[in-house]
């Protein structure tokens, strides 16, 4: 098993947390992971992006040249990273913020209205967790409880009150693609 | 009277490398006396600067450390944080402390670092043969101010005590001189107060000592002392600028 994912969104859309949760969960499942965030001035006001590689084998370059999966939260992100797609890639779009794209390679696209779903459950910031639920449901990576225990760990302390809504967001994301 | 002239135990009996009439030897002798009298030789660590006093460890029989030019306050911080129960002092000239090491002294004071700084202001760079120092007086001639220091080109003498006394982290700041037996006794008292400030964990202390460099002032020893009393102490008034024991 090997999976190269690029995650991107606006600074503040929680892509760091999303990527870290996936990485952490897969690490606990015994996989090798490298998670390479963009950092410094790049992030300020612009697109925050993350390269996540998961593999049974040793991982060498943390920089992804061709992605198995793109998780894109807004249009500028998609435009920046569509060149990393290959014919068998999967594309997860936050359709609340990206309406139309040209799917030239005819790849599998999942359009998840993540911002809208998150809004409906009362916390727009949880759109990243909606994407997590959807992505995991499609790829069948780890069981939900593993994610939830990682999530609990990350939200320890000050952010604990946000656990329930994040949990709900993961479930809603999964539900959405089940009906897709 | 025999006791007065006895060499302090902490002062190593060796020929001095300082010029005749130099103030460094007097100050270091005072430090040795205080260390003896306070009985702190076994727990005192000193910092030698880059300047004429670089070889201070040839005279003081205590654990000592050299530091790069201007950096003794930082090195002293590094030592004091490891051994907070030891007494750590830095010994610095005006070039070392008020030119290349300005940032270090200000921020060490500002952290309220519990160390004692002994600042020997001789208004020149002694070790490098007498160039202008940040404390060189207006119109004072040095190798690099051949026509005298001009405000226009070289700026003004920097008053370290005045600057440090407005920093919240400083606790005891004083300026003194060693031009007479009376002033030497006063200087010794202030140095003691500096060490006491540290021992009682009050925080940062600095004692500035106006000190003669007859060689690069191109004066006799006697003229140098007069120069301090008449000229230097006008630009650099003696006194206590900050004292944790008094209210102001």
């Amino acid at each position, binding site marked *: 098993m090997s999976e190269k994912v690029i995650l991107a969104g606006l600074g503040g859309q929680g892509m760091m947390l999303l990527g870290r949760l996936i990485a952490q969960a897969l690490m606990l499942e015994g996989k*090798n992971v*490298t998670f390479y965030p963009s950092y410094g001035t790049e992030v300020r006001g612009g697109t925050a992006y993350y390269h996540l590689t998961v593999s049974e084998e040793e991982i*060498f370059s943390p920089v992804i*040249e061709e992605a198995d999966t793109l998780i894109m939260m807004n249009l500028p992100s998609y435009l920046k990273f569509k060149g990393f797609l290959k014919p068998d890639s999967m594309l997860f779009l936050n359709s609340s913020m990206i309406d139309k794209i040209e799917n030239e390679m005819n790849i599998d696209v999942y359009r998840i209205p993540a911002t809208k779903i998150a809004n409906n459950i009362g916390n727009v910031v949880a759109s990243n967790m909606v994407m997590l639920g959807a992505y995991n449901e499609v790829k069948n990576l780890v069981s939900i409880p593993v994610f939830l225990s990682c999530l609990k760990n990350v939200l320890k302390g000050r952010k604990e009150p946000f656990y329930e809504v994040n949990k709900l967001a993961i479930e809603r994301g999964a539900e959405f693609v089940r009906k897709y | 009277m025999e006791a007065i002239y006895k060499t302090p135990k902490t002062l190593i009996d060796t020929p001095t490398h300082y010029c005749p009439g130099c103030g460094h030897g007097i100050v270091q002798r005072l430090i040795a006396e205080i260390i003896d009298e306070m009985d702190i030789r*076994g727990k005192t660590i000193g910092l030698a600067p880059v300047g004429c006093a670089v070889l201070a460890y040839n005279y003081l029989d205590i654990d000592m450390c050299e*530091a790069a030019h201007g*950096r003794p306050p930082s090195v002293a911080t590094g030592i004091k*944080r490891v051994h907070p129960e030891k007494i750590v002092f830095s010994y610095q000239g005006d070039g070392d402390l008020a030119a290349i090491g300005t940032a270090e002294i200000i921020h060490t004071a500002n952290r309220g670092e519990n160390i004692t700084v002994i600042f020997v202001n001789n208004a020149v760079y002694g070790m490098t043969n007498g160039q202008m120092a940040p404390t060189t007086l207006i119109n004072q001639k040095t190798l690099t101010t051949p026509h005298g220091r001009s405000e226009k080109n070289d700026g003004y003498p920097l008053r370290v005590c005045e600057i440090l006394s407005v920093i919240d982290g400083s606790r005891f700041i004083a300026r003194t001189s060693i031009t007479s037996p009376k002033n030497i006794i006063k200087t010794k008292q202030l140095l003691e107060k500096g060490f006491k400030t540290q021992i009682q964990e009050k925080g940062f202390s600095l004692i500035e000592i106006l000190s003669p460099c007859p060689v690069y002032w191109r004066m006799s020893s006697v003229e140098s002392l007069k120069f301090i009393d008449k000229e230097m102490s006008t630009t650099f008034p003696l006194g206590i600028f900050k004292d944790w024991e008094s209210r102001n």
Partner: protein
Amino acid sequence: MTSTEKNKKYLLTGNEACAEAAIQAGCRFYYGYPITPQNEILTHMAIRMPQVGGTFIQVESELAAINMVYGSAAAGARTMTSSSGPGISLKQEGISYLAGSELPCVIVNIQRGGPGLGDISPSQADYFQAVKGGGHGDYHTIVLAPGSVQETADLVFDAFDLADCYRNPVMILSDAQLGQMMEPVVFNKKCKPNLYKKDWALTGADGRKRNIIKSFYPVKGELEKFNAKLQKKYRQIKAEEVRYEEINIENADIVIVAYGTCARICKEFLKKGQSLNVKVGLIRPITLWPFPADIIQKVSERVQAILTVEMSAGQMVEDVRLSVSGRCPVHFYGRTGGGIPTPKEILKKISEIVSVREKVTCTT
């Protein structure tokens, strides 16, 4: 993170792993000044040092940081500072004094692009500065180059031991990519802060002869004697501490020499056995000083060519050439200013080397 458990896997950035490993290795005095891409080291230290009764100071400059390290090292403690390009340049004065006073400490350089303010992307352009001295005088720091987050942690442990063993500053030469990326890491190495007796340290001369820490030798002849002693120590380090990793070098036609991030990139096609019509091997120096000259010399006697890959305009390649001394051609591929060589680019370079070789053999 409030503590670490043995054998437990943590997902950490290289910078966090570096800071945590230092704490695990017994470092209790850390001084730093913010600069990207090493800020996570300061952040981690600010949280962790108070928890373990250590000292963290955010200082006014890198000059102050390295000199506080100098003081704490002189006082006998395990101590560290970290920075990136511009800040490491400021520390050079202090590093020379540390080497000259034979004080043990660890300095971390998370390399970014230069010269000048450059940028914050990964680079290996501080190689010369790290291995050739950087500051003034005839001295060396031991330079360790990690290739992963786990190895960053492991080398930090070793760095403190090496520093104490040889009374010498040790530099961890990493880069922005290795510092920023997250990987699983376990902290399994032992903390050995009391392995080497520090009877030279400044502790107050209570009941013993005083100690002096200095690098000033004004009496004629003394400094030369001291330098001879330093050189003897350096020879011993060269003889005993060289470390490198080798892959497929036995039957290789072409051997790549690359360290850190560049070595990782080369492994990408080496381990996956990309279809090449030549056999390619890799030597990855782990100690950049002392440099693994012997093994490079040995392979140069039997390979067709050596290729050095760096994120610089060609720095380590000079040491490779010295090691090879004309026994085989030495080629270079590098990217600068934040550029990272890709496997494709390196493979292209290899095929160029091969085709030139073939042409030469055809015509002669």
